[in-house]
């Protein structure tokens, strides 16, 4: 290959087809497009919610009306018409109640099977329970009964609202209040479903829990809400995956995730995000992923760890954060964000140190190719009360090609002299010499690139559960295939 060809192909992006771009033809029940108090009431009624939930939603809705859409991220996109969105879309129920596996529509089962998420318990790899969410509702939760034997609740949010109203009342909005931001308010008003996890005292959740989010309807907004409560001395590992069909239009995904860890509890939350990123050439379509994720380490020695592999979405805008209230609590954030073609990502974390001896670690790897924008935005705050707080932050960027950009925007704000904070960042490109060396050992160009990039991300992959690490690595390679020539 001549040097000229080489240069040419660096600028040329050949899209690897998005694997999960199909749609499911199934009869859906939808609320009319647009947002009003009536829609909020409709959603609440549809879910047969108790009064307190409707009140929560209406308060949030009224607050949302007073807010303006934030625009401070690095991403640029046309205005969103919030009245041109379906706020509720669910597969039509064939029977009165969803719940047992036998009642799940076979078409939906096939859909999730195609996505590699079989809903039949015997088919699923042992050790992982799944909550499958299709547009606005949870269609199935596996291993529910088995988990319940140990007191572990893993069910759809809707079910939790009726079955465990006290826990919901106590914790809903306690970490992300509806006043928090525009999208959190919107979510609080119209969220339709999501997963609920409750781990009782002294319980190590016997299997990994996982939610799989599938957007199917064009012009839908998916507003799911996840709440995980881990009581004293308990722990859970939670995995989250997402895909969507390819449409020319953009779909809004504005989720809220709240985690609460009491004394000595540990929550590991991993996300592999593979929403449809839009057309590689034109940038048309794709998901707007505007998500608020926050965990509160309320108890002493509690720990919340976020791991995210972000390969999809047209725009990613999220900051999984930790509020470290309990003394000796620990917050962690490990992130790999890949943007290629016309994707835009503005992601990072906030670590708020309040308790004594609180510790946090942030490792962020941003990879940017094509004409994509990849920004890390982070804040570490140490309050006056947080004696001996510690933070270590490392954020590295890798650029592939000369048309993309890498942006690093950290803030460190310290108000206690006993705190110790360290922040490091570097930027590198994929070296021609590295590619040549690997190729001279018989490794193809794409594999060489994949190898270098996954080496760059190793610190984060090490933190993922094994099964996810393999998936993450494959996703990364797919995402960057043919990004150099």
């Amino acid at each position, binding site marked *: 290959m001549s040097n000229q060809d080489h240069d040419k192909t660096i600028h040329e992006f050949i899209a690897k087809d998005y694997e999960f771009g199909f749609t499911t033809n199934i009869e859906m029940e939808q609320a009319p497009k647009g947002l009003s108090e009536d829609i909020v009431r409709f959603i609440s009624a549809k879910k047969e919610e108790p009064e307190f939930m409707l009140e929560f939603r209406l308060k949030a809705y009224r607050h949302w009306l007073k807010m303006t859409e934030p625009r401070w991220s690095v991403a640029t996109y046309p205005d969103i018409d919030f009245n041109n969105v379906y706020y509720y879309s669910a597969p039509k129920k064939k029977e009165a109640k969803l719940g047992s596996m036998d009642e799940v529509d076979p078409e939906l089962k096939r859909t999730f099977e195609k996505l590699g998420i079989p809903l039949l318990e015997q088919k699923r790899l042992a050790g992982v329970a799944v909550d499958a969410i299709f547009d606005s509702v949870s269609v199935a939760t596996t291993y529910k009964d088995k988990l319940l034997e140990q007191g572990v609740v893993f069910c759809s949010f809707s079910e939790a609202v009726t079955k465990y109203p006290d826990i919901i009342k106590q914790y809903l909005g306690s970490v992300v209040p509806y006043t928090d931001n525009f999208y959190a308010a919107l979510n609080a008003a119209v969220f339709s479903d999501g997963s609920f996890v409750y781990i009782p005292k002294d319980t190590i959740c016997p299997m990994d829990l996982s939610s799989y989010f599938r957007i199917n309807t064009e012009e839908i907004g998916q507003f799911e809400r996840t709440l995980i409560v881990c009581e004293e001395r308990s722990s859970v590992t939670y995995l989250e995956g997402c895909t969507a069909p390819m449409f020319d239009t953009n779909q809004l995904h504005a989720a809220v995730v709240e985690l609460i860890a009491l004394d000595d509890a540990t929550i590991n939350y991993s996300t592999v995000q593979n929403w449809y990123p839009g057309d590689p050439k034109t940038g048309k379509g794709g998901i707007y992923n505007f998500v608020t994720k926050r965990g509160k380490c309320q108890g002493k020695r509690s720990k919340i760890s976020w791991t995210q592999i972000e390969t999809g979405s047209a725009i990613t805008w999220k900051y999984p954060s930790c509020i470290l209230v309990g003394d000796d609590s620990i917050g962690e954030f490990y992130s790999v964000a890949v943007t290629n073609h016309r994707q835009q990502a503005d992601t990072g974390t906030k670590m708020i140190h309040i308790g004594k001896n609180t510790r946090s670690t942030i490792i962020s790897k941003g990879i940017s190719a094509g004409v994509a924008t990849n920004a890390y935005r982070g804040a570490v705050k140490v309050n006056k009360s947080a004696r001996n707080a510690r933070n270590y932050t490392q954020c590295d960027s890798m650029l592939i090609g000369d048309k993309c950009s890498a942006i690093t925007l950290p803030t460190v704000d310290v108000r206690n002299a006993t705190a110790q904070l360290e922040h490091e960042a570097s930027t590198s490109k994929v070296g021609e010499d*590295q590619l*040549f060396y690997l*190729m*001279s*050992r*018989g490794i193809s160009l794409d594999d060489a690139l994949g*190898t270098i990039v996954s080496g760059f991300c190793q610190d984060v992959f090490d933190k993922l559960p094994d099964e996810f690490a393999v998936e993450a690595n494959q996703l990364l390679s797919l995402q960057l295939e043919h990004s150099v020539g």
Partner: protein
Amino acid sequence: MLEIKNLHASIAEDDTSILKGLDLVIQPGEVHAIMGPNGSGKSTLSKILAGDQQYQVTDGEILFNGESILDDDATERSLKGLFLAFQYPVEIPGVNNAQFLRMAYNAKLKYNGEEEVDPIEFDDFLNEKLALVDMNESFKDRALNFGFSGGEKKRNEILQLAVLEPKLAILDETDSGLDVDALRDVSAAVNKLRSEGRSFLLITHYQRLLDYIVPDVVHAMVGGEIVKSGDKELAKELDKQGYDWVANV
């Protein structure tokens, strides 16, 4: 095995001419050595043979097993059986050495239409090769060349040579930066890898290496050309008299 005809090459970026009509023929099983002063173009030759795009071939031909390889990229050349032990092996953080070796090994197996090996099979195979080059098993778990000492990097190159079993191995200044003991180890490993079907091209500044790996043919390279060829005695002569002697021939 290798036939280079009237090779002209320059740096792609600024057209600086480096090779100016180089000819070289290496038969199967032969060991050739190219000696030359700094800037004679001998390391450039090795990079060009391996397919480095920093250089462009402006004239001439490179035939490997009778076929031109000028249009092949570095991967293709490697898969065809050409191996370069780098003068400065590249550090790649985060990439596990053993995984990398298996990846390269499997790429070759796949190319040859053979079954790829799983990590357990490969581990046994790799342990043998480690013993051959007298390397510690801890090398497997380290990141590729990352944080290696100069000597460790050179050993790692020979380990790759042993794993990939190429038809032609080019050793670019493998002796530089090695102390006498390391040089002896590396040379012994190379000698064990010599075989009837495998040729070697040694590129070196000093005659010292050739005491350990005895070549069949020695070439003196000056100003981008081979100016004199002979047997191993030529190397000693060059060491004694310097390159001016051949440059002025």
